[in-house]
C-alpha cells in the first residue's frame, strides 16, 4: 500500500510543483471536514421531536389539534393534508414539541405516515369511542399497520390511545376499548401472517407480541397508555375541552 502510494505521490509532486500540491491537499481536507460536519449536523437536526396524531376519519384529530394549540373550538372538515405546529406545554413553557396532524382518509393515511414516521417521538392514536363498536375492525387494522411498521418498531415511540368523544353518553370506556383492541389484534396477527405474500416477496410482516400467548399491549416494545378525553368538551362548543390526561401524557413524553 505504502509502496504504491510513494511513486504516485512523487508523480503528483512532479506534475503540480510544491505549492500547488499543498493547496490541493488542503482543499481536499477542507471538503472532507465540511462533509463530516454536515453529516453530524444533519444527524442532530433529524432527531425525533414530533408527536403524530393518527386515527380513522372523523375520530377528532383536527379538533384535538386545534384545541391543544389554541384552546378554542373550531369547525373542522376532513383533512386532506397534514398540519404541523409547535406546542408549548401548559405547565412548563420552555419545552415544546411539534404536533403533526395527519389525515385519516384511507387513501392518504399511509402515505403521510410514511413521510412522518421517522420523525415521530410519540404517537397519539385517536379513537372515536362512540362509533368504536362499528369500526373496531378498521381501527384495529390501522393500528396493526402502524405497529408492524419497521421504522416504528425500531424507534419504539411512546404510544397513547386517546379515546375521544367521551362527552357523548354512549361512549365506551378506555378499559373496554383496550380489551376489544387486544382481542381484535390477536385475530389480525393470525390472518395477516396467513395472507398471500406480496409481489416482491419482501418477507412476511413482523410478528406482533409473543407467539403462543394472547396478544397484550404490554408485549409491545413501546410504552402504551390509554386515556379518555373529549375534544369538544362537556359544556359544548363554548366550554373548555377535557384534555387533562392528554396534556399530562404530553408533558411526560416531551
Amino acid at each position, binding site marked *: 500500500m505504502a509502496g504504491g502510494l510513494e511513486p504516485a505521490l512523487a508523480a503528483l509532486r512532479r506534475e503540480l510543483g510544491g505549492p500547488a500540491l499543498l493547496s490541493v491537499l488542503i482543499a481536499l481536507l477542507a471538503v472532507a471536514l465540511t462533509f463530516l460536519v454536515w453529516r453530524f449536523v444533519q444527524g442532530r437536526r433529524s432527531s425525533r421531536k414530533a408527536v403524530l396524531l393518527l386515527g380513522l376519519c372523523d375520530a377528532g384529530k383536527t379538533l384535538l389539534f386545534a384545541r391543544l394549540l389554541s384552546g378554542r373550538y373550531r369547525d373542522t372538515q376532513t383533512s386532506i393534508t397534514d398540519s404541523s405546529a409547535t406546542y408549548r406545554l401548559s405547565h412548563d413553557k420552555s419545552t415544546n414539541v411539534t404536533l403533526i396532524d395527519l389525515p385519516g382518509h384511507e387513501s392518504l393515511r399511509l*402515505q403521510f405516515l410514511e413521510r412522518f414516521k421517522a420523525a415521530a417521538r410519540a404517537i397519539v392514536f385517536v379513537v372515536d369511542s362512540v362509533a368504536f363498536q362499528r369500526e373496531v375492525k378498521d381501527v384495529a387494522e390501522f393500528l396493526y399497520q402502524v405497529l408492524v411498521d419497521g421504522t416504528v418498531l425500531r424507534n419504539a415511540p411512546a404510544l397513547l390511545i386517546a379515546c375521544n368523544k367521551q362527552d357523548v353518553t354512549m361512549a365506551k370506556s378506555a378499559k373496554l376499548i383496550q380489551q376489544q383492541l387486544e382481542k381484535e389484534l390477536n385475530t389480525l396477527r393470525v390472518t395477516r401472517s396467513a395472507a398471500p405474500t406480496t409481489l416482491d416477496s419482501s418477507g412476511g410482516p413482523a410478528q406482533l407480541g409473543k407467539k403462543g400467548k394472547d396478544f397484550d399491549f404490554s408485549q409491545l416494545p413501546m410504552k402504551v397508555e390509554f386515556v379518555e378525553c373529549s375534544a369538544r368538551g362537556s359544556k359544548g362548543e363554548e366550554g373548555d375541552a377535557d384534555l387533562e390526561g392528554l396534556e399530562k401524557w404530553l408533558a411526560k413524553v416531551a
Partner: protein
Amino acid sequence: VLTAPLPQERGGNNSFTHEALTLKYKLDNQFELVFVVGFQKILTLTYVDKLIDDVHKEFRDKYRNEFQQKGALGLLNGTFDFKDDFMRLLRDAEESSKVRAPTVMKTFEQSLKSQKTVKCMIETRGEKPKEKVKNKKNKGSKKEGAEAATAPSKAPAGDKQLSAAGDKEELTKDEILQKNREEFFRRHMKAGEKSRSPKPDAQKEKGKKPRVWDLGNSNAKVLDYSNSATNGSAEACPVEGFDPDMALGDKNREPGRLYDLEYESEEEAEEEKVVQNTSKPSAKKGGLGGMFGMLKGLVGSKSLTREDMDPVLEKMKDHLIAKNVAAEIAVQLCESVAKKLEGKVMGTFTTVTSTVKQALQEALVQILQPQRRVDVLRDVMDAQRHRRPYVVTFCGVNGVGKSTNLAKISFWLIENGFSVLIAACDTFRAGAVEQLRTHTRRLNALHPPESHGGRTMVQLYEKGYGKDAAGIAMEAISYARNQGFDVVLVDTAGRMQDNAPLMTALAKLIAVNAPDLVLFVGEALVGNEAVDQLVKFNKALADHSMAQTPRLIDGIVLTKFDTIDDKVGAAISMTYITSKPIVFVGTGQTYCDLRSLNAKAVVAALMKA
C-alpha cells in the same frame, strides 16, 4: 369534495355532483386552499366560475400575510371575516352576468358593421392588450373580456362596452392584427410568457377557420403543446440517447420478477437531460428574458404554471399509456395532477420534471390504496362465528382465469383451515364442471380428510349443464349452511360485457343470492378494454338490482400477472374505475401462485423509464 374526488385523484375537471347539488371547486396550491361553491343542480349559473376566481383572488390578497408568516397557527387563530366581501362579490357577479348577455349580441353587430373605427382604436391604444395580458388568468376568452372589464375599474360603462367589443373585435380581426401582435410581443419579452395564454385561447375560439396554419410557421413554439414531438430535431437527440441505456439496464434482471426498484439514479439522469432541454428553448426564445427564466427556475422559488407543466405532463401521459394504462385514465390522471400542482411554489434546485413525477407517483400510490379493508380471512372468521357460509362470487369476461384462480383461492383457504364448497354455476362452457371436479380431486389429495379431523375440506356442488345458474347458487348456499361449510366459492360463466341477456342473468344471480364478496376477475394484459368491461359490469349490476343500494363489484382479482414484465398499467385502470381494491394477484397456474398487491412496487415499476 374533500372525501371523494380530491383524494381519489379525480380532480381533473372542477365540478362534482353530489345528490341535488353541484359543487364547483378550485384549488390554490400555493397556500393549500380549496374554494368550493355549491348550488342546486337544476340551476345553470354562468357566473360561478368567475365568482370563484374573484373570491380566490380577494381572499388570497387579504390574508396573504397570515398565511405566509404564521402557517398553521395563523389558520387556527386568525379570524377570517370574509362574509361582507363575499356578499359583495356575489352581487357583482350576479349583476355582471345579467349585463353580459345583451353585450354579446351587440358586439356581434358591431363587428359586422363598423370595422374601421375599432381597428383604428386597437392600433393606437397599444397598451390595451398589454393591460389585458397582465391581468390574465388561464380561462376562456370570455373571461378575458370580463377580467379586462373589471380590472380597470375606473372605466365608465360606455367604455366598458366598447372595450368588451374591442376584445371580441380583436379576436375576429386576428388575421389582420396578428403581425402587429407578434412584433409587439417580441418587443416585450417579459410579458411574452403571459401573452402566450391569450393566444392559444384565441385560437380555440376560432376552431373552424383555417387561420391556424398561418400561425403555425411563425409561432410553432406557442401553439405547440406536444413539445417532445415537434420542437425541432435538436431535442430529439437527448431523448433517443437516453432510451437505449435504460433498455440495456433491464437485461441484467430476471424478467417477470418485480423487484423493489431504486430509481433515484434515473432521476438524476433525467435532470441533466431536462437542463439541456430547457436551455434549448430558452436559446430559441432569445434575449435576456429566456436565460433569466431558466436561472430563476433552478434557484429560488418559481411558481408552476400550466405551460411549464404541459410538456412534462404530455411525456408522462405517453409513458403511462406505453405502460398499458388505459388512455382516458392516463389523461384524467394527468389533468388531476396538473390541477393539484398549478400555482405551487417549487423549492430550490427542483426541476419541473421532478416535481411532476413526484406528484404523479403520490397520486398513483393513493389510487392503489384500498378504500376498504382487504382482509378476507377476517371476514370469513366473522361469518364462521355467525354460523353462516361466506359466499364469494367470481365474474368476468371469457378466458381471464376465473376457474384457475378459484382453485388457487380455495387452496389458500384450505391451508388456513377453512372448508370450502365450490358451486359450479358455469353451466354453459363445455368441460367447466369437469375442470372443477379435477381441481377438487387434486385439492383433496393434497389435503386429505385425515389431516383435518376427518372432514373433507373441498367439495363440489354441481347440477350438470344447461340449468339456471342463480338457482344452482342458491341451492349450493343452503347446502353449505346445512353441512357447515365455511366458504362457498361460486364460479360463473365468462361473458362479454355487451351481451345484455347474459349480463342480466349475472345481475340476477348476484341480486338473488346476495354474496358477501363479488370479485371481478380481470387479466393484466387487458388495455383500454378494462375501462369498458368494468363500467358495463357495474352498470348491469346496478340496473338489475331491486334494492336501494345495489351490490356492485367489491374487489378485483388481477390474473396473468407473470405475463407482463413491468407494463402493470391495468392495475391502475381497474382500481381507478371502480375505486375498489385489488384483492388477489394471480401469477401463474399452480396453486401457490397467489399474491397480494404491493402498491409501492407496482408504482415503481410504472414510473420506471
